[in-house]
């Protein structure tokens, strides 16, 4: 597997095909022999901003940090939860098991959820 090509920037889907996020960065951990292995997928604008780097990246990460309203690190999905990788990264769990992205939660609770009809399917 090529991490850059097969993982980074791919769409992550839960077991029902619902979007979870993009693979914004990948975390490696060292094994017993010191050889790194893929430990987790990092999701969220903070991880993305730090990866992009530079002034723009720092700005994106900074905004994401401010919008996340708490000091939680970027969402981390353990690589064990990945079931299959095709044109997307498919997880073996439903997205309810993962923490909801803070921006989504904030907008849902403060903006979109307050408008009548937000619960109606079209």
């Amino acid at each position, binding site marked *: 597997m090529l991490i850059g090509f097969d993982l980074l*920037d*791919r*769409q*992550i889907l839960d077991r029902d095909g*619902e*979007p*979870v*996020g*993009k693979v*914004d960065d990948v975390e490696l951990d060292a094994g017993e022999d010191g050889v790194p292995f893929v430990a987790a997928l990092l*999701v969220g*604008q903070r991880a*993305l901003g730090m*990866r*992009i780097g530079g002034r*723009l990246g720092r700005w994106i990460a900074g905004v994401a940090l401010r919008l996340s309203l708490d000091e939680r690190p970027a969402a981390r999905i353990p690589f064990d939860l990945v079931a299959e990788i*095709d*044109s*997307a990264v498919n997880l073996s769990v439903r997205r309810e098991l993962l923490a909801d*992205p803070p*921006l*989504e*939660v904030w*907008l*849902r609770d403060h*903006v*979109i*959820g307050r*408008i009548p*009809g*937000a*619960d*109606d*399917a*079209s």
Partner: protein
Amino acid sequence: MKRFLAVALGILTAIGGFVDIGDIVANAEAGARFGISHAWILLLGVLGICSYAEMSGRVATVSGRPVFDLVRERLGPRVALGNLAGSLFVTVLTLGAEIGGVGLALQLVTSVDYLLWVPVVGFVLWVVLWRAKFNTLENVFGLTGLVLIVFIIAFFRLDPNYGELWHQASRPGPPHGEDWGTYWFMAVALFASAMTPYEVFFFSSGAVEERWTAKDLLTSRINVFVGFPLGGLLAFALMVTSATVFHPRDVSVDSLSQVAMPAAIALGKLGLAAAILGFFAATFGAAMETGLSSAYTVAQYFGWAWGKLRRPREAARFHTVLIVSILVGVLVLMTTIDPIQLTEYTLVFSAVVLPLTYLPILVVANDRGYLGERANGRFANAVGVLFLAIVVVAAVAAIPLMIVTRMGAG
């Protein structure tokens, strides 16, 4: 039978949905100033959108990935972010132009200034996208857009000078009083009006959301290869009626009321009413598509939940982007910029950003790891590369032509 009806409905919607404010403005302006000497450009643009939409429809159907998802995957987060900024800018400006077009159409039947209509149209647009049965409405507006056929009927009733029109079409070039600069400027605008990126964002996102399978691929191809050329025929009717009425009088077109006049001259009040209804349906339908496309691009770049079929609560970020886009579109119009001029600008910028989304699609359409046997064949590639070249040339030429010709003023 049911399947046949579904296919027929798809084609009819594609025909009516092809025309938007950009096509209306570019074709009528070109027809009035240059006769139909740009007919070949329109043909080229229609072939281009067919190739582009077919590829992205195929990629979306087989791999389940819409356009902007792939843009980031292939170009990386940094380049794709620039790409997102450009595409979003153009799509939101186009949304503004479409809302302005709806306002202008309403002004023609109510005498109420379009600026007073703009906030109303923006609000109704949002309500429609918020909770209405989107697919039903898409079909309603697509089918209503078909009344633009009135321009085809009008053309034959106008008793045109076929010899003169053939002369214009067969010898492309600027007529007396125009130069090559303005000719090519108009050509770029016209090409961009046929080959709009938002159409493809919308089309491929729809394919993913409705979970098309390889079986739907045939339907999608029929929609593209039959619907788009017939839609292009409606656009051509706008050009050729304008060329028949305005070009001999040496009058150029710069308002929507002028575009409708050939229908009135040929078919009276009924023809005029049909033309205005057609403008309304075409621009409102396109406003729905551009509004959604703005939100699609952002959501797909960041990997958020998106879609017109989801409950808004389940796609809060997507719906927030949608609301902001509509607001920005309305605010742009509230600066009192003329919607027709705004349309001209969006066409130029649209030409500039087109290669950024066209290239990744062409590359992925060749990727056997994604598409297996459904990857591009030789013919599709020959066409794809040809249009890549054309799209790049148009993108490079657009801004210099705009400056040199002072927005086509000469």
